[in-house]
Structures are given as structure tokens and as C-alpha cells.
């Protein structure tokens, strides 16, 4: 059993990790124009600072024996109501460690990249403020030691993503995309809130230690419920089916945002959540199965969408969905999968960031065209971008020795250990990946130039290319590094547990099959898009293509199932409110008014009628008196 070590030495700085970017965000956002000049650099510094601390902590953590690598720092008591106690407490263990590094390092690189990419944007101060906000929130998310605090980070990154997707708010499409992202995530949040509540009333606590310590004691039904709720949350954050619709629109945001938030880090929070809660899924087999199914569906949705999009960023977004599908899928496989989910998450974080930044670099040179049909033959003009992009390309399609190969291969392997059908499915998906990535590369860098007339492509400035290079190196070697030098299994094993089941066939066989399928996919892609002429106008395409261009009708479905009904209800209720509820009030008053108008007629002004009513009154009174007596 892992034991907690106090937050001393370098670990005392745990809170600083978050504080640095948070302070940066505050300064930039509230500091106003006077910070315009130096603000962005400050932002970069804070993140770099966090990254440095993170690395130091990694080293310190490595010094510790394996079972003593969980640090908890209780910053202060946060929400204490009766038996419900949520501290602002941070927990650093092997799992959060790797996330800290991913976030801070990739974050730092992207900050630097943005210095160039956003150089000419009037609001870049805000941009960097938001980025800092995001890093801070994301660090809270992965460092929280209880679910409620995790929720804070969870929602914080959501906010940052909302702000950054809608960064160019004057574009209505951007504003709409931002709103969509937030609201769909909100659906996921419902899942998270309910999960937290259910966890609390089941375990009487919401800290990870207590919950996982007692997970086995709770009934499987409850655990399944919790698991499914957490899956809902994860699906929202990680754009998994059925809450995938927002991610493609999210590409409205600036490219560095897409790289950092919607490829490398935030969208993987769902995976983190599931892996973090492994104790629950281990005990709730049906929840785990649901995770697998969701992952599998999303793998294919993403891949298909990615194959059909002409917008390079959307195509990448599709592939992100698909890759995260892989991670979720792996996380669903249970102890054999958790580690590789994280492994893939790390490699993907690096190479997908590289790919996005590369795409950004291309757009930068093609004055922000995203339509790949207007690219082509750029390999000569953007050498660095091209090379780094190829590194990412080989990584994602999983060609050895590039990073993606190791992680994805492990997942496929694990899939086969569970069940050969899903294993086959993952291999097929890998093939599709090969297809659409090849398509992307071919359309962008090879073939003939199909540029717009005013386009004169050029390589991006060093401030942008250097991060590309670093990420490219990562895409190339990270897989091996983690696997052989960092031996990630043993590193994560204390947190996630690990079990390996022997597979019927030798590992080499799966690798071979996978590679063959991938290559086939790649070749098809090459033949279709490098050999043949790519029309500038997209051909009508077959049913699947058209569906994929419509994001497989995700929006249409949401519209019919959710949005329209909601607005119709709203209108109906509004009418009801004015007509019925308020109308009732008005009705009563007007009724009394009419009554008054009628009754006042009784006041005829004729003495004799008054006298008559008096006589009547006397009779009534006397009669009443007698009746009362008789009764």
C-alpha cells in the first residue's frame, strides 16, 4: 500500500506550481493595458518556472522508494460543512507527476510559440492571460487530492477553453463554438457533480485515499453508477461519443490553443479522471465495459471525420478524437490498459501538439487558409515545418521507432489480451489513421501547388520553429524514452496497478499485422491524394464522406434531440407564464373590477330603493335571528 509522505523540501513548493501561472493570469487580466508590453513574457516565465519546479519534483520523486511517491500538501480547509469536508489539498504522485510535466513543458513550448503566432494580435495580453489561467486550472485538476477540488480545475479549464475558443469573439462562429463547448461540457459536469455526491454519500468522503481505500466495500451497483457518471464527465471533457460535437467547432480558436488545450492536455482530462478512479472501475465491470464501448465508437467516429475534412485543423481534431478514443478505450480495459492509456496520452500530447503547431505554421505562411485543397507542394518552402510535421506524422500512424508506435502498439496488444474482436477493431482504426494522416501530409506538402493567388508561403520565424523542433524530437524519441529509460510501467504501476495476461499469439505477430494495415492505409491515402490531382472544389464524395463532412451529423442529432425541444419548451413556458400564470392574476383583478361595476348599479340613488334594501335587511336579520335560535 502506498504511504503518504509529507510535503517537505521541494514538495513544499507544490502550491507554487499552481500559484505561478495563476498569479500571471491575474496580473495580465486585471493589470490592464500597462502590461501589454511585458505581459506575454511574464506569462511565458511563469509557465517555464512551473516546468522547472515540475522537473525538480520529478527528480526528487525518483529519489523516493516506489511506494513512497505520494506527496499530499494540505493548503487550507476549503469547504467544511458537517461531515462534508473538502480541503484545498494537493496530491503529487506518479500519475499527477507525469501530467504536471506534460502540462508545464508542452504548455511552456506553446507559450513560446504563441509569442510569434500571436505577435500581431491586439489582444495578445488577454490571450496569454487566458493561457496562464488554463495552465493553473489544469494543474489544479491533476494535483487535486479530492474530487471537489478536481471539479474546480475541471471547470477552470473549461472556462479557459471557453475563453480561448471564443478568443476572436467578433467572429460569430467563434462565439457560438465557445458557447457550444461550454454547454456540452456542462452536461459532462452534471455527471461529475452527481458522481461526487454519490461518492460522498457512499463513502462519506471525497478524498482519493478514502474513496479508493474503501472502494471494494461499496456495492457494485453504486460503483457502476459512479463509474458511468464519471464516464459521462470524461466524455464531455474529452469529446467522446456522445458528447463529441464541440471539439471540431473548437478549432475556431487560435491554433496554439487547439494544440495545447484541444489536443495535448485538456481534452485528455477525461482519461486522467478515469485512470485516477481506476479503483472504482476495477470493481465495476459494467462501467468499464461502457468505457471501452464509448472509446471504440469514438475511435472510429474521429477517424472517419478526420478522413473527410478538408480543413486541416478539423481533420486534426478528428484525429484527436480518435486518439483520445484509444486512450479511453485503453483505460476501459482495466489494469492492463491504464498504464498504456497514460503512455499514449503522453506521446499523443507531444506529437499532436507538434502536428497542430505545424499546421499553425503552415497557416501562418498561407495567410490563415485552413483548406488543405488550397495547399500542396509546401515541403520545399517550409522545410522545418515539413520535417517536424513528418515526425509527428510517423509518430501518430505508429511507425517504429516513433513515439506513437510504442504506445498505440501496447494498447492494441492489451486489447487483444482482452478480446480479439476489439483488438481487430483497433488495428482497423490504426489503418484508417494511416489513411487520413497520409492524406493530410500529401495534400499539404506534396502534389501541385493549389494556392490562392495572393498566397506566398514562407517558413515561420524561429520562435515558432524551435518549439516545433523540440516537439518533433519528442515525437521521435519520447516513446522509447518513456518505455526503456523511464520504464513507465513500473513508474505508474503503484498508482494504477498492472496485470498482464498472456495472449494466444506472440507479440511480434500483432506488431506485424498492425504495421501492414497501417501501411495499406497510408498507401491508399498516398495514391488518392499524392498521385492523383486534388480538385480545388471538393468532389461530392460518397455517403460516408458527406456524413463525415457533417461531423457524422452530431450537430443535427443534438439539434433534433436536445436543442430544438429545449427552445420549444422555453417558448411554451413563456406563453404559459404570460397567459396562464400572469393571466390568472389579471383575470382575478379584472373579475373583481367587473364585480364592482355590476354591484355599484345597486347604488341607484333612489331613496326608495335604499329604503327597500333596509327593509330587506331587517327581514333577513330577524329571520336569521329566529333561524339561529331554532337551529
Amino acid at each position: 500500500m502506498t504511504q503518504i509522505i509529507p510535503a517537505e523540501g521541494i514538495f513544499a513548493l507544490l502550491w507554487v506550481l499552481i500559484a505561478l501561472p495563476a498569479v500571471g493570469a491575474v496580473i495580465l487580466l486585471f493589470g490592464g493595458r500597462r502590461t501589454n508590453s511585458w505581459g506575454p513574457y511574464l506569462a511565458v516565465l511563469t509557465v517555464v518556472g512551473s516546468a522547472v519546479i515540475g522537473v525538480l519534483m520529478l527528480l526528487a520523486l525518483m529519489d523516493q522508494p516506489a511506494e513512497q511517491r505520494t506527496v499530499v500538501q494540505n493548503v487550507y480547509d476549503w469547504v467544511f460543512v458537517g461531515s462534508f469536508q473538502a480541503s484545498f489539498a494537493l496530491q503529487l504522485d506518479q500519475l499527477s507527476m507525469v501530467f504536471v510535466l506534460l502540462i508545464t513543458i508542452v504548455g511552456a513550448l506553446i507559450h513560446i510559440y504563441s509569442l510569434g503566432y500571436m505577435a500581431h494580435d491586439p489582444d495578445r495580453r488577454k490571450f496569454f492571460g487566458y493561457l496562464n489561467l488554463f495552465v493553473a486550472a489544469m494543474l489544479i485538476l491533476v494535483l487535486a487530492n479530492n474530487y471537489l477540488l478536481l471539479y474546480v480545475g475541471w471547470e477552470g479549464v473549461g472556462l479557459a477553453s471557453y475563453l480561448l475558443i471564443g478568443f476572436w469573439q467578433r467572429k460569430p462562429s467563434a462565439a457560438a463554438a465557445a458557447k457550444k463547448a461550454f454547454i456540452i461540457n456542462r452536461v459532462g459536469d452534471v455527471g461529475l457533480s452527481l458522481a461526487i455526491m454519490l461518492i460522498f454519500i457512499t463513502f462519506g468522503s471525497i478524498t482519493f485515499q478514502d474513496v479508493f481505500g474503501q472502494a471494494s466495500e461499496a456495492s457494485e451497483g453504486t460503483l457502476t453508477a459512479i463509474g458511468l457518471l464519471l464516464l459521462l464527465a470524461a466524455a464531455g471533457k474529452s469529446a467522446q461519443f456522445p458528447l463529441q460535437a464541440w471539439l471540431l467547432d473548437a478549432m475556431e480558436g487560435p491554433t496554439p490553443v487547439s494544440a495545447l488545450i484541444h489536443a495535448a492536455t485538456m481534452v485528455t482530462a477525461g482519461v486522467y479522471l478515469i485512470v485516477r478512479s481506476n479503483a472504482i472501475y476495477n470493481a465495476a465491470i459494467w462501467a468499464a465495459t461502457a468505457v471501452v464501448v464509448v472509446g471504440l465508437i469514438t475511435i472510429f467516429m474521429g477517424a472517419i471525420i478526420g478522413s473527410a475534412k478538408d480543413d486541416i485543423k478539423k481533420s486534426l481534431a478528428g484525429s484527436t478524437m480518435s486518439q483520445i478514443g484509444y486512450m479511453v478505450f485503453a483505460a476501459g480495459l482495466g489494469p492492463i490498459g491504464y498504464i498504456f492509456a497514460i503512455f499514449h496520452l503522453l506521446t499523443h500530447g507531444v506529437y499532436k501538439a507538434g502536428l497542430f503547431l505545424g499546421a499553425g505554421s503552415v497557416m501562418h505562411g498561407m495567410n490563415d487558409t485552413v483548406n488543405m485543397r488550397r495547399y500542396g507542394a509546401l515541403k520545399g518552402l517550409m522545410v522545418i515545418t515539413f520535417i517536424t510535421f513528418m515526425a509527428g506524422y510517423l509518430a501518430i500512424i505508429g511507425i517504429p521507432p516513433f513515439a506513437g508506435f510504442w504506445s498505440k502498439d501496447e494498447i492494441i496488444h492489451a486489447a487483444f489480451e482482452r478480446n480479439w474482436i476489439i483488438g481487430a477493431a483497433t488495428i482497423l482504426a490504426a489503418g484508417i489513421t494511416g489513411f487520413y494522416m497520409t492524406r493530410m501530409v500529401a495534400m499539404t506538402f506534396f502534389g501541385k501547388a493549389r494556392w490562392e493567388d495572393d498566397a506566398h508561403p514562407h517558413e515561420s520565424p524561429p520562435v515558432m520553429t524551435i518549439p516545433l523542433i523540440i516537439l518533433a524530437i519528442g515525437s521521435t524519441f519520447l516513446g522509447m524514452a518513456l518505455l526503456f529509460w523511464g520504464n513507465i510501467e513500473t513508474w505508474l504501476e503503484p498508482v494504477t496497478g498492472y496485470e498482464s495476461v498472456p495472449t494466444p499469439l506472440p507479440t511480434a505477430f500483432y506488431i506485424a499485422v498492425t504495421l501492414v494495415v497501417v501501411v495499406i492505409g497510408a498507401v491508399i491515402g498516398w495514391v488518392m491524394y499524392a498521385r492523383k490531382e486534388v480538385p480545388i472544389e471538393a468532389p461530392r464524395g460518397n455517403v460516408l464522406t458527406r456524413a463525415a463532412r457533417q461531423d457524422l451529423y452530431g450537430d443535427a442529432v443534438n439539434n433534433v434531440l436536445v436543442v430544438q425541444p429545449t427552445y420549444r419548451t422555453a417558448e411554451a413556458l413563456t406563453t404559459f407564464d404570460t397567459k396562464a400564470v400572469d393571466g390568472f392574476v389579471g383575470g382575478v383583478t379584472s373579475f373583481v373590477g367587473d364585480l364592482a361595476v355590476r354591484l355599484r348599479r345597486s347604488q341607484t340613488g333612489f331613496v326608495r330603493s335604499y329604503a327597500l334594501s333596509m327593509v330587506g335587511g331587517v327581514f333577513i336579520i330577524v329571520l336569521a335571528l329566529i333561524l339561529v335560535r331554532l337551529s
Partner: protein
Amino acid sequence: MSAFPWLTTLGVLPLLGSIVVALLPSSKPLLAKQVALAVSFVVLGGTIAMALQFNGSSTEPFQFVESYPWIPALGISYSVGVDGIGLVLVALAATLVPVTILAGWRDIEEDQEAGGSVKGYFALILVLEALMIGVFVATDVFLFYVFFEVMLVPIYFMIGKYGGPQRSYAAVKFLLFSLLGGLFMLAAMVGLYVVSARQLGTGTFDFLTLVNLDIDPNTQKMLFLGFFFAFAIKAPLWPFHTWLPDAAAQGKPGTSVLLIGVLDKVGTFGMIRYLLPIFPAASDFYAPVVIGMALIGIFYGAYIALNAQDMKRLFAYSSMSHFGFITLGIFVFTSSGGTGSVVYMVAHGLSTAALFLTAGFLMSRRRESALISDYGGVNKTAPVLAGFFLFAALSSLALPGLVSFVGEFLVLLGAFERYIWVGALATLGIVITAAYMLRVYQKTMTGPLNPSLDAGGIKMTDLKGREITALVPIAALSIVLGFYPAPLLNVINPAVERTLQFVSVAEVDSSLSSEGSEQ
């Protein structure tokens, strides 16, 4: 306990202030404002000074108690005191008043023709402050009722004299609704008095005596209805809400802030302070009905807000939805639910203030139009304004890290603990909240600048120093309390626990280990 009569002082100060303001010459509007502002700051200072002396761990039901016989013939006494709940609400009032004054600095000049004198408005605000403090600190039911009713008068004039075109309709509607509730409460109060007279020989209105009566359930049920009716109208609960949108839409932003932000809290405050302890059996009996109303309110308000064309009405309906949450938290009879409700009251006060004031600043730049369709792309020319607007929206949709989240989560948790499905259902509300809040932000602030905002002498300028000064404290408070709510929770929770002891149903505790601790 400090012998100094804190509460009376806090109540009397603004009253004197209002008299001074009213006596100032109409020719010096600026002076009137300055005096009003100064007074409200003094009150705020006093409140803080008092709050610092408040002993959160005291076993006394009330602190800073004062009691003098008023109408002994009827067992009525002037007795005041605060528990945690009262304290935070007093603090809320004392905080929002200066903010409102500051924000409303220029609101009145514009419509002299409407008939309101500048000083009159600010005098009314101070009167209202005195009464609001009074209603939260009264520990004598009769005294509470007096404040409860008299409070209507200043707000009635604030709406009717300083409001929009439909102001007198709105004011009368507001007054009649409130009077209706008030009168039924009066009837119930009379009944309560008679009951106490029958049990104790001499009737009394002293809260602490009344809670110890054992009233037979059927009587409780009748009396409960009287009080509840008043509170439900005040809060407002579905379906007694229709006065609110009109009042909010016609009132000045400042008026709406005080009306919805503080005054309506009297309804929910009354529920937790009076209904639960005095009528435990009836509360238990009616809880399902009330919770039903609360749930309906949550979604009803949210849905209509989703469709609203008028910002002020939108905020009104969203408040209705929030009041649904608050009421829900109170009537699930759980510690977290009750505490959450009170926190939610504070949070909602702050977010309402932020919303209405920002919207007010926005509309003051567009000839007071509240139509959402009249705006668009504001953040282009007024980024700070847009920023605060977004902040207000976020705090209203209970973003984690803001105090409203603490309240909302605790309420939902409390509901979940008691009735798992109610909690689950209510949680769905947070999605719609996000939907309508972001919708109004998107429509007004983003996209291309609405041409009408740059024509006919209209300039969508950014916030000025005064306006920012008014908003910053609210924002700061909601963030600070969001990340460090302990000051609230530590004073509220004991009071809530004490209240819940009266309600028969036991506190539910969780199945496995009932106390969760760090590590």
C-alpha cells in the same frame, strides 16, 4: 457579549442618515449622494466591526441580543439579535447598499420628469437599509412582521417613482402581491399568538418562546400556510412569481439589486428562521410540496430565461430559478442543504448585484433599452464592461471557484443526501443555467458591433472609474469567498444545525464511514 447595542445602532444609523439626506436642499443633489454614501460606509464599517466580535462557536442561539418591552399588553417586545444566518445577511445588505449607491450615482438625473428627486431616491435607499437590517435581526415575530411589511413602502416608492414607463403598474403589482402574502402571514401570526396565549396563559411573540411551544400538527399546518404564503411570494416561488419580472424590469438597476439581492432573501430567510423551528411537523408535512414547487421553479425560471428578450426580465427569471435552489436546500432538512442555502443567498445577492449593475451600466449607454436584440459586439468597444458582464454571468451559473458554486453544490448535495432523485434532477438545472447565461452574453457582447450602438449620439464607451469601483468589491468577494468560504460556513453551519434540531427528521449520514477526514 458586548454590551454595546450594535444592532440597534446599525439600524438607526441609516435611518438618521436618510432623514439628513431628505432634509438637504434639493439644489444640492451631489451632497445628498455623498452623505448617503458616507452613511452607508459607516454602516458597513459597523457591520464589519460587529461581525469580528461574533463568536462562531457560541452556544447562545443569538448574539448581540437586546430586548425591551414594546407592547407588553400583547406580549410584543423590541428584541433583536443575530445568529450566523442573520449575521451574513445583514452583512450582505450592508455590503450591497454602498455598492448600489455608488452604481446609481448618475441613474436619477436622467429622469427628473418621472418625478423623483435625487435626494429622495438615496434617502429611500437608506430607509430600506435600516429596515432590511431590522428584518434580519428581529427575534420577535411581531417586530419581524412590522419590518417585513414596512419594507414594502420604500421599495414601492423606489419602483413607482423612479422606475421605467410601466413603473406604477409594476409598483402596485409588487405591493399588492406582497400585501396579500403579508396579510395571510398576519392572520397566521394572530393565530400563533392566540395559540401561545392558550398554552402560556399570556400570549407572546418572542421567537425563542414560540419555538418551544408544542402546537398540535393540524394547527401547525394551517399557521404554516399563512407564513409560507408570505415567504413564497417574497422569495418568489413558483407560481407566485409574476410580480418579480415586472418589478425588476421597471425598477432602476439599484432598486432591483436591493429588491432581488437582499429583500427577497427575507422570504427564504423566513423559511429557515421561522417555518422550520416553529412549525416542525408542518414543515415536515409540506416538505414534498415545497420541494416540488422549488423544482418546478428551478426549471420554469431557467427555461423562460432561456427565451427572454429583455435582460432585466431574464435576470428576474433566473433569480426565480435560483430561489428554487435555495428553497430546495432549506426543505431537505440536511446540514449541507441548509448551510448551502444560506451561502447561496449571499452568493445570489452578489451575483444579482453584479448582473443588474453591469446591465444597468450597459443600458445607461443605450437609452435604457433592456432589449437583448439592441446590443451585440459590445466587447469590441467596451472590453472591461464585457468582462464584468461575463463574470456576472459566470458567478450566476455557479462556476467552481466562485462562492455561488459552494452554495449551489452544497444545496444539491443536501438534496441528494435526502432524496437522491430530487438532487439528481435539480443538478440538471445547471446546464440550462449555463445555456441562458452564455446565450445573453453571446448575443450582447460578441459578434460584430450592433450598428445601433454607434448611431444617434449613442456611444458604447467602456466603464468609468466609479462604475468599476462599484463592481470590483463584488467580484473580489465572490472569488475570495469562493476559494475560502470558511468565514461564511463557520458562522452559518452552527445556526443551521441548531435550526435543524427542531425538525423531527434526523440528519441523514452516509452509509459507510460517516465522518470523512483528510488522509
